[in-house]
């Protein structure tokens, strides 16, 4: 099972219409951790590129 299939699997039992539904802790954690991790990676990565090559890259969206 690759990463994308694993992500797909993680959300499949998320059915809040069931009485007493509780989202899986791992699903909630991944929803928050994955974007934050990628964001930190990209943010520090671009900062490093700017510092190493002495260039200023465009800020892009949300910035």
């Amino acid at each position, binding site marked *: 099972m690759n990463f994308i299939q694993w992500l797909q699997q993680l959300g499949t039992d998320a059915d*809040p219409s069931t009485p007493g539904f509780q*989202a899986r802790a791992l*699903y909630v954690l991944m929803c928050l951790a994955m974007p934050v991790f990628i964001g930190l990676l990209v943010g520090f990565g671009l900062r490093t590129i700017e510092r190493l090559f002495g260039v200023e890259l*465009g800020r892009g969206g949300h910035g």
Partner: protein
Amino acid sequence: MTAGDFVLGMANFPWLIVFGLVIGGLGGFFGVGGGFLMVPMLNVVFGVPYNIAVGSDLGQMCGMSTAATVRHMRFGNIDFKLGFLMIVGTATGVEAGAQILEVLKVAGSITIAGHHVEVMTVVMSVVYAALLVFLGQAMVRESLRTMKRESGSGAFVPISSTTSYVVRLRSLRLPPMVSLPASGIESISLWVILAIGFATGLLSGMLGVGGGFIRMPALVYILGCPTVVAVGTDLFEIMFSSAYGVFTHAFKANVHLVLVLALLVGTTIGSQIGASYTRKAGGPRVRLGFGLLAFVGVIMVGIKLWFKLRSG
């Protein structure tokens, strides 16, 4: 429909990256987040239900705003005190917006002209169309005014930064009063800060937008923040509001992780490409193009709703 029920075909994965690339490119080019285009277009182009589109777009926005805040932090333009105070209002607004979406999700369907259509689809389509018209006309009018002035054919009309309404809000003496030294604000009612946070949070939680188009002018004109501080604090606020939005939408199973990943990959690359081109183009013509693009979005949302009605 929840994120668990919505199956995203793997064949769509590369197309979603391309889609994120285009929206991210446009966002980077026009200097905005692009959330207000992302959600309706995910619904129109890929058939993603609005609740999942909102939850997943907030995930994408969380990543993008984290990256932007990390890069912006070195400039030291974030008023952390203002940011943290506003978060209280923002989080309440996000939760209220997410709850409204939950109500719409289970509201079932209505009959319009003999055709059945989901209440959520109708309400969200109308709200998005209204939002796109509002943003589009504001951009078109502003850019046309600037172009007229630059060509010398229009008389210069100074824009008052402090209308009487704004002055009344700023001078509201409803305790507790707070001071914001980093923004150079001696005293302002906490309720004004919370109200701004709540309004933008509501939009974020319900529509999956960053809300910068409201927060930025509010920070500058109502609170009186310097523009550079407003930009940095707005970013900081988007990061927290989208993170809280993802969190609360995850509990409602509205976040599709594969969709978030595809969009994030696309928008991260696209926004850099878009931002590099905006330096070459720049100016009011870019904003005019952006305004017109919003109207294209309105037409697409309208066509989709019409097809839904026809097939219902």
